[in-house]
Structure formats: C-alpha cells, structure tokens
C-alpha cells in the first residue's frame, strides 16, 4: 500500500528522532531541564506581577511591562511559534505550577536521596491530599468554560495592569490550592485557562514525545515512566507515556525520559497535524475548536473591526453592554457555530449516501478539521496585535514600570506601527496556509469517517464548503471588502 503523503510530499508516517543526537538526549534526560527555563520564566513573571500591581487600574496598559509582555509578547509568541511549532512547549516552561510541584514533591530537582522516599515517589505524591480529579470532569469541558469566562473580561484585562495582576494572581493561587488537594498536574490538565487551546492546537504541532521501540515497553514492568523511580517522577500529566498517541495532554515535562531505564522515549519531528488522524476524539475537544473560532470572530470584530457600536458594547461601558457582550459571545461560540457546523455535517451525511455512519461520528470527526483552520485564524489575528503594538515593547523593556527608567536606552522610542499596510496580506497568507492543512486533513477525516471512498468523496463536499466559507469569511474580516 502506498504511503499516505501530506500534499503528496511528506509521508505521514515519517518521523525524525531528534534524541538520536546525544546532546539532545542528554538535555532531555538532565534533571536541570526544564526546571532552568521554568525558573527563568518565574523571574520574568515576578517582574510582570510587580509591574501589573504597581500599574494599578489607571496606568496606560501600552506602557506597562505586564500588559505588553502578557498580552502582546507572550500571546503572540504562543500563537506564532510555541504552539504551532512546538506544541505544549509553553507548558514545559510555565512557572505557575512549580510551587505546586514543590508542595507535592518536597523537592525541586532530584526526586529523592533516600530509599524510604521511593514509595512516595512511585505514588507521585509526597505532600498534599493527592485526590484524583472527578472522572466526569476529566475532559476539556471545564477548560472550555473557564477560558470562555476569561475572554468575557478581555477588554478590561488587556488594558488595565491591575486586571492582569488579578488574573495572574488567581491562576497562581488556584494552581497552588489544586496542587495541595489533587494529584500531580491536575491544575494544568483540567483548570488552567490556556491549557485547553494549547492542548487542542498541539495536535497540529510538528513535534511529539513518543516511545521508541514498542517491544521494549511491552516487556518492561513496572512502567517507570508512569510510576517514577530514583531518576525521576512518574508522568506529571497523568499520561501513559509508553502508549501515548496524541500531544493533547503531554506537557513536555520529559520526566519519562529521565525515568525510562532503556532510554526508550524519543522526541520526534513529524509532519504537522498527524494527531488529527488519531482516533481518540471527544466532543469536549470539538467544542474547544468551535469556541476558539467564535472567540476569534468576537475579538476580530470587537477590537479590529470598523463597527463602532460593536466596539462600544465590547468595551462594556455599562452593565447592560456587558451582558449583551457576554450573551452574544457565548451564544455565538458555544451554540451558533456548532449548530452551523452540525448542519453542514448533516448535509455531509445526506450527500454521502451512507446511512450507517452515525451523524454524531461525522460531526465529531470533521470538527477536527477546524483545528488547523482555527490555528490559522489565531495566527492571522496575532499579526493584527503585533504590527500596531509591537513598538511599545521597546519602551517597556527599558522602562517596565513607567517610572522613568531607561535600562537599555529604548525608553524614548516613540510608538511606531510596523508593517501595518501589510497586515492584511500576512493575515491572508496565514489563513490560506492553514486552510490548505484543514482541507488536507479534512478529506482524510472523511475517509476515516465513511465506509467507502465513494461515500467519503461525496460526504466531503459540504465540509469543504464550510471550511472554504469560513476562510473566505475570515479573509473578509481581516482584509476587508
């Protein structure tokens, strides 16, 4: 059987093992990785917290280190590079859970220096209650609602330093409390506001952590990548590294590299999006895909669109405006978009002629074609944030608290929009690139969904239509008429 090649070029089964190179493997097996990047980020985030707190409610957000670093630099880096190229690489170096990890483990670097600690290492808990997260909530639904609610306050948070401080403080406090009550990285997996979309879009990333040689894992007991040993902790993200198939919940903590006595974990480069074809799917992830597209529409229309009355509502100048905004926002993202997509899936089933394929299956499978599309929309949206606002970064790195500092001599650089004339073009290119991935994987999803190729081809047209119409819609929104 001929290999399935993405765009006729790359075999979807192709993998390049980066850890075959000794320095890479040594890095991932080192106890100092990723704790050193985490501590570096912790230093930065303490500065961010100071800037956010000192900025108060009245200081201009565009001259505040916290607002600029979080909502411009970090967000754009996340959408441009960290997620599409490196999956959950942000989770790897996120400083928020490190206090929780320390509470649970009682140590920062090495897992143990005392044999009597081993039992506790293997259980993955030392301090805290170590409860398991409720079974019914072990999905993305909580993440969907938490992120949706967070976006209700975006017009406020993204301009008021103190609002950014409050948000970050809540996240830190909840992370610490969760670590005390629940096991391992329960917070990261089920409560962190950004974990949902990072996990969802990590399925597109061209990197993965997977076991290398299956028979080696089959013969190995106990599975120390799960239990932990004297070299490291068991998987913090409560995954089973030896049978991991998707990036969604792999936080790139690399503990499995440290604990595998056979060096059987590898860090692969792969064709982008291969996780989309893995048949582990759920409606929670589907709704996450809808939600991200809905939020992109709301943000684009509210913050970058030409309609003044919508901007006024979005900026919540009154309680009634706030209620209108959140109602419209939630209805669009959680109801209307899924409904529209459902209608196209219904047509897909009708056109396919396949009576035995459940409509729910069609809806579920095809919703994964929205992952590359949604990622493309967010990359495009991020151009609209970066180009007009990027020059403020030069000011805030020299004068992070607007106290009159000039650390690097750039505090006097005036606001200068960069490449704004070309913003629409960059956005259009980003949309089209990710649209091609959506189409490439969408048709493959159709072949997975329907019993024959004939059914798949027929059933594909409505989905192709909705993907195309969505892309055209976003092109119109970003580039204009």
């Amino acid at each position, binding site marked *: 059987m001929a290999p399935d090649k993405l765009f006729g070029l790359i075999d979807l089964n192709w993998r390049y093992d980066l850890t075959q190179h000794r320095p890479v493997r040594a890095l991932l097996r080192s106890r100092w990785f990723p704790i050193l990047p985490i501590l570096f980020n912790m230093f930065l985030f303490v500065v961010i917290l100071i800037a956010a707190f000192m900025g108060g409610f*009245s200081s201009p957000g565009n*001259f505040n280190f916290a607002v600029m670093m979080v909502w411009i630099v970090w967000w754009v880096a996340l959408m441009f590079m960290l997620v599409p190229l490196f999956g959950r690489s942000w989770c790897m170096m996120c400083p928020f859970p490190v206090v929780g990890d320390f509470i649970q483990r009682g140590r*920062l670097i*090495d897992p143990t220096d005392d044999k009597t600690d081993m039992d506790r290492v293997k259980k993955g808990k030392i301090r805290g209650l170590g409860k398991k997260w409720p079974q019914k909530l072990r999905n993305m639904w909580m993440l969907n609602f938490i992120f949706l609610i967070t976006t209700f306050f975006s017009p406020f948070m993204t301009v008021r330093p103190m609002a950014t401080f409050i948000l970050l403080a809540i996240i830190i406090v909840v992370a610490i409390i969760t670590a005390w009550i629940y096991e391992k990285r329960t917070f990261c997996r089920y409560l962190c506001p950004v974990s949902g979309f990072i996990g969802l879009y990590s399925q597109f990333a061209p990197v993965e952590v997977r076991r290398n040689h299956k028979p080696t894992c089959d013969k190995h007991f106990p599975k120390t990548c799960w239990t932990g040993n004297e070299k490291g902790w068991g998987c913090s993200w409560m995954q089973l590294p030896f049978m991991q198939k998707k990036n969604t919940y792999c936080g790139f903590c690399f503990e499995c590299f440290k604990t595998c006595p056979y060096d059987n974990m590898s860090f692969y480069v792969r064709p982008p999006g291969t996780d989309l074809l893995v048949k582990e799917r759920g409606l929670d992830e589907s709704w996450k895909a809808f939600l991200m597209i809905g939020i992109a529409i709301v943000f684009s229309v509210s913050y970058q669109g030409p309609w003044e009355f919508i901007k006024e509502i979005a900026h919540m100048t009154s309680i009634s405006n706030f209620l209108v905004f959140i109602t419209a926002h939630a209805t669009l993202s959680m109801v209307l978009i899924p409904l529209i997509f459902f209608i196209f899936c219904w047509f897909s089933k009708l056109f396919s002629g396949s009576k035995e394929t459940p409509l729910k299956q069609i809806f579920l499978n095809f919703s994964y074609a929205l992952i590359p599309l949604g990622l493309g929309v967010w990359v495009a949206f991020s151009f609209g944030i970066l180009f007009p606002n990027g020059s403020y970064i030069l000011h805030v790195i020299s004068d992070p608290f*607007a106290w*009159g500092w000039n650390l690097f001599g750039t505090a006097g650089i005036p606001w200068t929009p960069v490449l704004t004339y070309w913003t629409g073009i960059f956005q259009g290119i980003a949309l089209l690139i990710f649209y091609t991935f959506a189409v490439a994987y969408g048709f493959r999803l159709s072949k997975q969904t329907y019993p024959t190729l004939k059914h798949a081809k027929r059933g594909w047209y409505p989905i192709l239509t909705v993907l195309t119409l969505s892309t055209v819609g976003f092109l119109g929104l970003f580039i204009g008429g």
Partner: protein
Amino acid sequence: MRRNEVIGMVLLLFATLGPIVLVFGYEGYRQSQFTAELIALTPEQGNWQPLEIRVSQGEDVRILLRNADVVTHSFVVPELDIHVNELKAGHSKIIEFTPQEKGEFSYLCTIWCSPRHPEMVGKIIVE
C-alpha cells in the same frame, strides 16, 4: 540535602525574591537622586502628585516628572521659565533648575486633558 537541591533552592529564591529586591532596590537608589518625583494625572484621577514641592533657594533641583495617566500632559512653570510642552502617557522627563528667588511658583498643565483641566495646578515653594 544534595548539592543539586541546594542550588535549585537558591535559584528559586533568586527567581522569586530577586526581582523584588532588584526592582525596588534600584528604584530606591534612583529616587535618592531626585529632589522630588512629580506624577501627572488629571484632576479626576488625583491631579498632580504632590500638589506642592518645597525646595531651597540656590540649590540644584532635580524633579522626575512622570505621566502615569492615559492622556498627554504638559508641565509649565511660567515664572521659572520651565516648559515641558508635551509629556505623553507613560513617559517621563527629568527637570533640572536652580531657583534663585524665594517664593511660590505655580506649575500647571497647558494641554486640555480633561473637563477639570483648569484645576491641574500645583506649586513649587522656594524657601
């Protein structure tokens, strides 16, 4: 405790407490080089802070003027011939002068910044 753990804890302390010490330490050192820090805000947001600056006749004065507002202000002391015609939101400027005469000298914003703009007046008292 193993050496790695000690090093890790030191780094953790540096990452958490280090920024606080460095930021406020540096700011304290900077502040010591100024006679006063003057923050520009619209009257609705608090007006000039402080509204009164006391200095000594004949001694060099160094004021850090900071616009902590979201609108542009200016800083003018007509009787001392000090003019900062435009200070944008988030920006700062250092004002240096040596008052030769005793008295009270008003400083004001000359850019229409809010409905209560005319109230944006403070005074430098030279003693």
